[in-house]
């Protein structure tokens, strides 16, 4: 084992499609590895994915450990775990990060226990401090608090939230090594009996989001927001109450227990601005709020605020945009 400090990134893929969070992790991992004067490696488990392994290099990895087997086409929990634990024991990374996706959290937790190490969940910041310590920053208490956490065991493991780290520009001149590893197969114990692709509303990737909250009077009124969204090629978002009422699907929910978003423009209509909602959208470039209550907390983080009725303001906005475009 070399004495160089290694940062390892889990490259998450589903049926051959890489989850873009993997590139964000590599962007952050590159920064951490450079500060530690170490290397950046990535672990990719999948089937026939050599091309993707190169993409990981183009996005910053010095080395990609590639596990190629048909068992990895599906979410084969115990096989993923077993092979990743073996790799971590072999290369002894200083830091090991995964995406804070359902899969990353579920898998990361088991790997951490198998390695007898700590795992910090859902980080929004990772830093190397002045003394060279790895500091993991994460929201807790439903997003009301930011905790700075350090880990005394190795590897120092963390899952990282989507859309908070930046990936590096793809660079095909970047050099890296692809290392094929032999796969050990374990009895899987779980059988996948059915798999359906969900028609995803990928709100986390939207550039413009028009969100509605409990200020809407009925489910149908989301169509008003959809009209505005249509004009701006935007995605419709929601606070939690409309989702709880079944007015709109959970994929649209923004906030602590929904999606974290970082659009160029976030328009909040009839949303009060609870800490849990803000936890998912406070990083938006421009925040616009429409709310009848001048004391609504959403105005504290708004760049533009309209104290008024959304049923008056939204149609006027639609009309004005149409007119400007005509």
């Amino acid at each position, binding site marked *: 084992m070399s004495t160089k400090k290694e940062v390892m990134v889990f490259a998450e893929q*589903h049926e051959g499609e890489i*989850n873009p969070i993997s590139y964000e992790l590599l962007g952050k991992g590159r920064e951490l590895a450079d500060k530690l004067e170490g290397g950046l490696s990535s672990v990719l488990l999948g089937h026939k994915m050599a091309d993707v392994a190169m993409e990981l290099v183009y996005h910053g990895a010095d080395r990609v450990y590639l596990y190629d087997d048909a068992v990895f086409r599906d*979410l084969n*929990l115990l096989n993923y*775990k077993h092979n990743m634990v073996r790799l971590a024991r072999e290369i002894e990374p200083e830091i090991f990060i995964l995406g804070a*996706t*359902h*899969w990353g*959290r*579920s*898998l990361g*937790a*088991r790997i*951490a*226990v198998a390695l*007898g*190490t*700590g*795992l910090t969940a859902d980080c929004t910041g990772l830093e190397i401090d002045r003394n060279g310590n790895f*500091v993991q920053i994460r929201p807790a*208490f*439903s997003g*009301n*608090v*930011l*905790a*700075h*956490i350090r*880990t*005394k065991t190795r590897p120092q493991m963390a899952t990282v939230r989507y859309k908070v780290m930046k990936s590096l520009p793809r660079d095909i001149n970047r050099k890296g090594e692809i290392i094929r590893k032999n796969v050990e197969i374990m009895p899987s*114990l*779980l059988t*996948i*009996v*059915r*798999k359906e*692709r*969900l028609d995803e509303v990928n709100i986390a990737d939207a550039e*413009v989001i028009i969100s509605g909250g409990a200020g809407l009077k009925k489910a149908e009124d989301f169509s008003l927001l959809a009209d505005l969204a249509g004009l*701006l090629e935007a995605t419709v978002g929601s606070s939690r109450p409309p989702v709880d009422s079944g007015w709109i699907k*959970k994929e649209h929910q923004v906030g602590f227990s929904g999606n974290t978003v970082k659009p160029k*423009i976030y328009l909040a209509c009839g949303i009060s601005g609870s800490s849990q909602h803000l936890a998912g959208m*406070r990083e938006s470039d421009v*925040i*616009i709020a429409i709310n009848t209550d*001048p004391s609504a907390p959403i*105005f504290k*983080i*708004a*760049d*533009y*605020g309209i*104290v*008024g009725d959304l049923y008056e303001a939204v149609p*006027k*906005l639609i009309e*004005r*945009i149409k007119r*400007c*475009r005509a």
Partner: protein
Amino acid sequence: MRIIVPLKQVPDMNQVKFDVEGGRVDRSSAGVEINPFDLHALEAAIQIKENKGGNVTAISMGPRRAESSLRDALARGADNAVLLEDRKFAGADTLATSYTIAGAIQKLGAFDLIICGEKTVDGDTGQVGPEIAEHLNIPHIAYVSWLEVSGETIVARCEMGGRAYTVESAFPVLLTVTKDVNVPRLPGFRNKITARKAAVEIWGTRELSGFADISRCGVRGSPTRVHRVIIPSEENRKGMIFRNTIDEAIAEIADNLLSRLN
């Protein structure tokens, strides 16, 4: 069917106060309740018991006052309750928490199913469930939104990576459930009274000896440490607020929107 539900007592998030200046969380300002996600775990367990027979044990690690949440669980239909309480359990991170709970589960003996919540509202990690499964060396299915027990197996639906998977497992297995899985029932009045008298077993390090090694519990067994807590204040935004001037506001905002999008 022997079912175990690990549940946590948490502060009521709508009441906790956060002191921005001092960076302190004032838990004492709030009442306590069962972690909302764990109510769904408990409900799932009780429904399986009602359909297939068996019993449900609720287990919690926390201070003595968490006994009240276990009584609440008994009132909602759990058959037994165990509180893991000891000064040496305090300050545990997820590794030590899951280790201690897994030790207690081993002491309880054979089981078929463990059902956890998706996550807690204070810890927010969603790790303790899968970590318990790893300590016990059994498979788990996380983020379950629907489930059905049929004979010798359980079938559960979960969403991952933009896909919905329906997964089948033999027993024993651990599940973590989302709030889509069911609608939790309220405790019955008569049950509340019986539950008040029911015994909650209290286990400390002594009771767990042979099942959990004290050096792996609590703060000693926790590799992660919180070094600093920051309570963020609202950042500076442009803050151009329009009152009673919707038309003017619309003009300004529409122009701004369009210029940013072109």
